[in-house]
């Protein structure tokens, strides 16, 4: 009796487990299919967009009138950005696919720049036309390779989930048609990006100034770097110091200094350029739990800190309080002209007014002796180029880096429409509106609004 009951119970248990397992399996499959489909959509969409891209560039080659060329180029810009978005949704981040992405983004910025230009006044130059032709050729190659991969994917029912697994396991030896196909696409793009010559303004858009070419001074040693770090932090006494040189992959040479003070439990990290021993950034890790001094006092101590450390003629232009820290943004002011590319940020703890952060990255990359040009336009003349709906509150002269990466002298205006404040830069020579920014308003705390 007992035995048969036991058997029945066990049989039920086995059947139950089996059923549960089957259901789990089904669910897992459904999710896998779902992710696979997402990848497939992105992949086929990518190949479609590249088809479209190739065609669009082809038609724009044959166009002459501004009326049709501008919209066609705008279309190229849109399609290249969609293709780039598709790439971003494929599990390719663990393999080299940068060159293709760079190619797509280059097409995008080239077509954008030419699409927004007044082509009646400034038609495509021969060089730009050649660029367009080479983009056409290149997109053709990529299109063909992608189509090949697409054909194989469809023919052999290849799954992107396998690609993901192969890449994640690092086992790239195994034969994977998709990975191989994409590697071919990438190799062909490499060939392109090496020989292509876009005009110089073009590269500056993509490539930020990554080195500190303007700074002067002699090479410093590790010991000197440690001494500089101590000078900046004001730490004294029993401090553990560690100095490391940068790795081989860096665009510039620097030391990373870390100072730890066991007594105060504070830890300071700092990077210093090897040439000249300039501080790139500094972060002092400690908790700041109270606000005892005002933002204004803190901004004065930030200014004093900069002055004491030999950063002269700087002007505070932005300040903000985040909980118990104040963050201050300073820019160079040379002969009354603000130089926005030269910016330094300082972070002050509002409990004791001491510096807990410093970043001179932009300043060191941008700062140099500048010859301040004369503004051709008067304030009134520049004002005439501003939308009359903007009520102007403030104006000054300033250097900014514009869309094409050039430094230009502008008349800067701060103006108001309704509750919003705008910063408008009018080129002081040509009167062109170089940049219009809507300045950030404080954001409501949504927790309180629900």
């Amino acid at each position, binding site marked *: 009796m007992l035995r048969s009951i036991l058997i029945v119970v066990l049989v039920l248990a086995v059947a139950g487990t089996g059923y549960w397992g089957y259901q789990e399996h089904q669910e897992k499959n459904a999710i896998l299919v779902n992710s696979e489909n997402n990848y497939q959509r992105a992949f086929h969409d990518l190949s479609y967009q590249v088809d479209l891209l190739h065609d669009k560039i082809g038609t724009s080659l044959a166009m002459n009138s501004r009326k049709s060329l501008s919209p066609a180029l705008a279309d190229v810009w849109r399609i290249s950005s969609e293709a780039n978005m598709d790439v971003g949704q494929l599990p390719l981040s663990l393999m080299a696919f940068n060159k293709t992405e760079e190619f797509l983004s280059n097409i995008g910025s080239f077509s954008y720049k030419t699409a927004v230009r007044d082509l009646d006044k400034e038609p495509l130059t021969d060089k730009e036309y050649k660029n367009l032709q080479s983009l056409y050729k290149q997109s053709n190659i990529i299109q063909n390779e992608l189509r090949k991969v697409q054909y194989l994917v469809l023919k052999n029912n290849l799954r992107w989930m396998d690609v993901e697994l192969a890449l994640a396991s690092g086992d790239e030896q195994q034969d994977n048609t998709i990975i191989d196909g994409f590697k071919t696409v990438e190799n062909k793009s490499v060939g392109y990006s090496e020989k292509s010559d876009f005009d110089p303004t073009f590269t500056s858009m993509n490539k930020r100034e990554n080195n500190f070419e303007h700074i002067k001074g002699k090479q410093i040693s590790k010991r000197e770097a440690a001494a500089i770090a101590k000078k900046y932090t004001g730490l004294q006494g029993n401090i553990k110091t560690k100095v490391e040189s940068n790795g081989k*992959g860096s665009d510039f040479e620097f030391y990373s200094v870390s100072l730890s003070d066991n007594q105060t439990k504070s830890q300071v990290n700092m990077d210093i350029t090897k040439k000249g021993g300039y501080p790139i950034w500094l*972060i002092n890790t400690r908790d700041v739990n109270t*606000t005892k001094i*005002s933002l204004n*006092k803190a901004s004065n101590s930030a200014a004093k800190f900069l002055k004491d450390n030999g950063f002269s003629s700087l002007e505070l232009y932005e300040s903000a309080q985040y909980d118990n820290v104040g963050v201050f943004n300073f820019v160079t002011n040379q002969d009354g002209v603000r130089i926005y590319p030269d910016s330094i940020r300082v972070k002050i703890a509002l409990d004791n007014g001491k510096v807990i952060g410093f970043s001179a990255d932009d300043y060191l990359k941008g700062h140099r002796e500048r010859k301040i040009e004369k503004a051709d336009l008067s304030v009134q003349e520049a004002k005439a180029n501003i939308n009359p709906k903007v009520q102007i509150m403030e104006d000054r002269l300033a250097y900014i880096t514009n869309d094409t990466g050039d430094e230009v002298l502008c008349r800067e205006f701060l103006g*108001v429409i309704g509750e919003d404040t705008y910063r408008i830069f009018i080129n002081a020579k040509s009167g062109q509106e170089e940049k219009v920014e809507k300045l950030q308003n404080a*954001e409501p705390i949504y927790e309180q609004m*629900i």
Partner: protein
Amino acid sequence: MKGMASIVKKGLFIFLVSFAVISGGSNAKAFTNQVIQRGAVGDDVIELQARLQNIGYYRGRIDGVFGWGTYWALRNFQKAYRLPIDGLAGTTTKNKLADASNFNRAFVHEQIRKGNEFTYYGGTPIEKQIKTKPAGAKKRAPKSPGRKVNKAATNSPAGFSQNDIQLLANAVYGESRGEPYIGQVAVAAVILNRLESPVFPHSVSGVIFEPGAFTAVADGQIWLTPNERAKEAVIDAINGWDPTGNALYYFNPDTATSKWIWSRPQIKKIGKHIFCE
């Protein structure tokens, strides 16, 4: 007669001095003695905004954040009252403002605490200037313990919303919660460097959720609740701190499985992560 005159003079003097003391005293009670400047948050800013609104200079929301709207209102006030126009609320400006306007601290603070929409114009009964939240709205939990400053809004770095920052903090916390603080700033900086790079997606969510880009996204650790420190790290990175020397990738050498990542030129090591170009 001479003695009489001097007594009168003395009396007048005492009277004036005491008057000055009294009015000075009430001013001191009005604001704390800090100089308030743009970017500040807190009770003094609430009072500044309410007082400026009371006499019609400020038309924005009273939220306790000294933004551009407050700045222009203050400058207009300074101009109208022939004060030096510097956009700073120093002693003279605060005193002038306190004399010219009234401020019902209890009322204003209550509205902010309750999260009501309200204004504080002079000339209209204040009770009529409240728009309470719809009855269906859930009552806000009593002040969350982490908040120290009374405000209804917050500063956020240009171009990023609080939700963007939260998403970044999630990613940073999921990826590097065991790392030192600068390691967390570094991870946030890598995400931001990718935003600027042409070969990565151009939005915060695009970069974070790119398939295979971050292990914390792949294994769901991104949905752990981040702490304040991760958020601070994100704000530092947005404000321009980049401890990585413009790195676009990083990996943990102990757990990295991809061979390709080792081929990237390495810049430096922070905590357990190696950062590369």
